């Protein structure tokens, strides 16, 4: 914490990365428009912006994956042309993406030296030196993972640390992290922050891409905000607070939502009842009820068994014991198809893996679960289908150049809206939403909250899993805290003290 306040060391004057007038267009979109951006040696620089603001494009240009249409790139004071990723890497640019790019079934040491293996004079791999060097590298960074550990057995957080170590092994001078904490627990994030501070102090320039200032305020020196492909300015972090960052990101002087939590008590009959549901090593004796018009939030740390619980309710896993009742009737689902027929919808946590077919066009994703609606006597009615897709795109304000755009090319927030549109097209009455705003920008977040409230107002039952405390407080009528697969507390939102909630999540004390 204290380290962050220390100004960048003597190297501050020298600039590791300087971008001038960077421009990049894709067919139909200007991704970057005359963007200036610079990173000094020894600073941690946050790059903030909504999804689709141009952050990823900027990173991809600096890492040599894309080529800019116009503009100048200077690395270490020299104008360079980044033809491919190797060129960028040779100049000391290292990018760490959300999904760690490590080979799963090789050891930590093997991964650290992948592609630059240490050899004996006979041309074989020098395992002793490899392990010794790996241990030294990890030790220097204070990472307590044995070099012989199999990467497949490490968590996401640990993998990210290994990636940083790998980047340093190849003497990165500029380290770019793309939303690294999206899937990290609080503890893991702290370890990561400590490491990044250490790195900055040693003179490395660090770019931290995020769309939440709160997350990085304690870490960064300066902040640059992108909006719609343009830079709206670079500021020392002290000059910013949550409110003006949100205004910079969204371009409106909108206040952070302070809408009052919805009042409980007026909910209808129970739609979903869960009684003593069990699955070995995942969750234990879980019981709760969600009523018509109610938003129930399950919160807890990542890995607390929440995703598994939702997948069980959706028929993708079978419970070992316990009972699920829908509208008062006990049900047993063989597969998700059964669950969907009973009026259940699941917005999965793994959006690209389970939520939408990224190579299929947007309209086909929207209608994927409700094709039956568009079948005439024998055949699909394309006009009706397309008309419906266009209506959903309008209603949810999904930003896409056309309904035929491949879903994977849309930004994270718009992808999430597509998944939501898919389920809104069915006759589902019970909505299971797993981390609905993960990887979604501030503006879209508010829109998704509004959609969730609309669902409840329309008499649906909504069960949300979330580890974002603000989100929990924002949308939940009732909140259940989960710890190690057990429900350890229940709160009504009106009288909810956030500290109590955090306590229950981390220590398991029931209120």
């Amino acid at each position, binding site marked *: 914490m204290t380290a962050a306040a220390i100004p960048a060391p003597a190297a501050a004057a020298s600039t590791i990365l300087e971008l001038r007038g960077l421009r990049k267009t894709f067919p139909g979109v200007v991704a970057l428009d005359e963007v200036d951006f610079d990173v000094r040696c020894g600073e941690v620089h946050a790059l903030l912006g909504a999804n689709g603001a141009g952050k990823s494009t900027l990173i991809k240009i600096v890492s040599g994956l894309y080529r800019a249409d116009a503009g100048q790139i200077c690395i270490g004071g020299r104008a360079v042309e980044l033809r491919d990723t190797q060129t960028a890497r040779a100049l000391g640019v290292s990018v760490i993406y959300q999904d760690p790019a490590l080979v799963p079934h090789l050891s930590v040491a093997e991964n650290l030296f992948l592609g630059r293996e240490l050899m004996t004079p006979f041309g074989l791999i020098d395992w002793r030196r490899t392990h010794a060097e790996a241990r030294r590298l990890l030790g220097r960074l204070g990472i307590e993972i044995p070099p012989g550990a199999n990467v497949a057995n490490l968590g996401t957080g640990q993998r990210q640390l290994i990636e940083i170590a790998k980047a340093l092994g190849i003497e990165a001078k500029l380290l770019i992290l793309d939303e690294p904490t999206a899937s990290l627990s609080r503890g893991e994030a702290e370890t990561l922050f400590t490491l990044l501070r250490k790195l900055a102090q040693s003179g490395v320039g660090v770019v931290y891409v995020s769309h939440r200032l709160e997350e990085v305020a304690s870490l960064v020196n300066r902040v640059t905000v992108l909006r719609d492909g343009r830079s709206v300015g670079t500021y020392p972090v002290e000059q910013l607070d949550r409110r003006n960052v949100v205004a910079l990101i969204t371009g409106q002087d909108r206040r952070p939502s302070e809408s009052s939590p919805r009042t409980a008590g007026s909910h209808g009959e129970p739609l979903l009842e869960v009684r003593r549901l069990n699955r070995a090593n995942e969750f234990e004796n879980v019981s709760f009820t969600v009523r018509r018009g109610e938003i129930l939030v399950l919160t807890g740390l990542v890995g607390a068994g929440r995703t598994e619980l939702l997948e069980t309710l959706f028929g993708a896993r079978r419970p070992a014991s316990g009972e699920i009742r829908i509208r008062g009737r006990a049900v047993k689902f063989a*597969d998700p198809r059964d669950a969907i027929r009973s009026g259940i919808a699941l917005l999965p946590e793994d959006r690209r893996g*389970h*939520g939408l*077919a990224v190579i*299929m066009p947007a309209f086909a994703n929207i209608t994927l679960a409700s094709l039956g609606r568009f079948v005439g006597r024998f*055949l699909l009615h394309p006009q009706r289908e397309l008309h419906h897709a266009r209506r959903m795109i309008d209603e949810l304000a999904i930003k896409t150049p056309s309904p*035929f*755009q491949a879903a994977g090319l849309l930004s994270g927030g718009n992808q999430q809206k597509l998944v939501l549109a*898919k389920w809104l097209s069915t006759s589902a009455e019970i909505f299971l939403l797993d981390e609905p705003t993960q990887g979604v920008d501030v503006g879209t977040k508010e829109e998704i909250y509004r959609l969730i409230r609309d669902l409840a107002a329309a008499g649906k039952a909504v069960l949300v899993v979330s580890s974002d405390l603000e989100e929990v407080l924002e949308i939940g009528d009732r909140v259940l805290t989960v710890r190690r697969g057990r429900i350890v507390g229940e709160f009504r939102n009106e009288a909810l003290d956030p500290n109590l909630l955090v306590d229950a999540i981390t220590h398991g004390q029931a209120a």
Partner: protein
Amino acid sequence: MSATIAGPRWRALLGRIEPATIGPGLALLAMIIVFSILSPYFLTRNNLTNVLVQSAPLLILATGQTFALLMGGLDLSQGSIVSLVSVVTAGVMMRDHLVLGAAAGFAAGFGISLLNGLLIGRARIQPFIVTLGTLYMGAGLAMVYSGGSSIFGLPKPDVDYFFWFGGGFVGSVPVPVLIAVLVIAVTYVVLTRTRFGRHVYAVGGSESVALMSGIEVGRVKILTYVISGGCASIAGFLMSGRVISGQPLLGAGDILLQSIGAVIIGGTSVFGGQGGVLRTVLGVLVIAFMVNGLNLLAIDTFAQQVIVGAIIILSVWVNSLRRRRA
């Protein structure tokens, strides 16, 4: 993005002119121009009819193969099904008559395809492994049933009807071409206008998403392989009729590889989820005209194989370059 909806709207859905078809389309055009300059015979009505008649079985096979590839799979057993259908049809015809022979032949083809489907859709074994296995089994069964030799001397008058399917005419249109066009038309409608068709794309696009969207993935897979094998059975029947005999090695040549090659040349993704049957038609025509043109120029068949192989690689390469630039 710039592609706007033109013509009937349903064409806009999955049948828009895809950039992927431009490559093979231009290749076909270039070939026709070059061959018609080099050989005066190339552009004659006689030659073109000939090419179409010869490529009709391949059109049907590749149409079935399109389902398998779109769904993210592959059907290696098509050639063996051709052989099996051929000998069973002819064998039963020897003793009884054409109708019973055809029924028995198609039943045999259906048996292999259903086995493929069940093993892939229910036992969840990879399509490559399953169809590699049934490729051997089908080829072996055809040899066992026929005793390893061709079945000639089919009884009159059935043999004339049999030949009609492989080499007859309706008016001036060759019967096999008519059947191929019918199969392609039905496939086009199935792929673009039915739930099943959309489900094939969805399973090929992402199997887990399809599952989580309530699609019966197992059923889609079974049906896909039944269709692929069904197309192979039709092709086997037409090919046998053309040679008025049962041939245990009828599908053992490069017709299977051409079937897969044509789908790929047409621009359907090897990973599934993208493509369509019209692209496959394009792919078949590229192969058919290439082979025909080279024949007219008296280039031997072995050199032709080299060229067809190069085209397969080239077309996938061009597609991947395009994708990389996007």
